[in-house]
């Protein structure tokens, strides 16, 4: 299954992203708990074609999640979301090698996130 996994501890944002992607006929799994998201991924990594994750999350941060995902599948596509782009680079140097092209700064429009997904995946019809 070509499923997009969306992970964000803010349920309102999570729900909005889930709804808009489903509107474009993508198959979406939404998780507000990054630990549960990782468990689902590890059960069946090939199910997910794209991961969209917030960076600052309790339990397991988005960067920790990405490290564990890339340990299993180094080519997995991941889009990161953050409200603190400058701070993330300055304070943590984003310990995993993330391209700035793969980071979407919050707040963003829903169109922006859809554009980022479209760049990486064909629209499901």
């Amino acid at each position, binding site marked *: 299954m070509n499923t997009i996994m969306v992970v964000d501890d803010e349920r309102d944002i999570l729900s909005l992203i889930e709804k808009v992607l489903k509107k474009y006929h993508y198959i979406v799994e939404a998780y507000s708990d990054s630990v549960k998201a990782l468990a689902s991924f590890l059960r069946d990594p090939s199910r997910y074609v794209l991961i969209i994750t917030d960076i600052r999350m*309790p339990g397991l941060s988005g960067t920790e999640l990405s490290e564990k995902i890339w340990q299993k599948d180094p080519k997995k596509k991941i889009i990161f979301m953050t409200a603190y782009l400058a701070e993330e680079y300055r*304070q943590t140097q984003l310990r995993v090698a993330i391209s700035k092209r793969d980071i979407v700064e919050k707040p963003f429009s829903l169109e922006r996130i859809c554009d980022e997904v479209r760049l990486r995946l064909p629209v499901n019809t």
Partner: protein
Amino acid sequence: MVRERLLDGTLLTVVDQLHKFEFGEHNILVYPDHDTLRELYARHCKKRLETDNEVVVLLPHYLTAPSVRYALQEFEIDVKRYEEDQSLIIMDAINTMFNPSTTDFLAYLRGLEARARAKKKNGLCVIADMGVFYHMRKIDDLVKYEASIPSKSELKSNLLCVYHKRDFDRLVKEQQETICKSHYREIQIRPERQM
């Protein structure tokens, strides 16, 4: 820990008790979710700013400063006025607690307390989200940092270290025990549905 210093309840019960704590206490609070923390900020700030005439410092980590301001405004707190007269300070914990070090953070708090006295405020209330240490992957530093702050002092300030439950649960038992022992009171907010 002494039984009277353990508090486990709903948000409203906890907020009610927080208002009764004395100055000089260094306490730990474990919260279940972001909405609960937003409401805690709002209810606690309202009392500390409007009734107790204190300086309030909020150092969120998972919540943005604008979203905290919005939560306070929802409780009819005049955020603009309090920020302008520096009774209310809201800053991302990452810039405050690691800029450049935790040692400087303690000096920063002492400076704030002196400033509060000069402004004829009754004291200082600080709520710091310790999630920032997890984000920086400095768990060992977190344990040392908590242990370096006295659990009870003569200061006219209250320091409330808040932990998201998922973060607190990541610690091994020994770390949890060391951190709890470093605080005067242990407080846990239960989600309403679990009570």
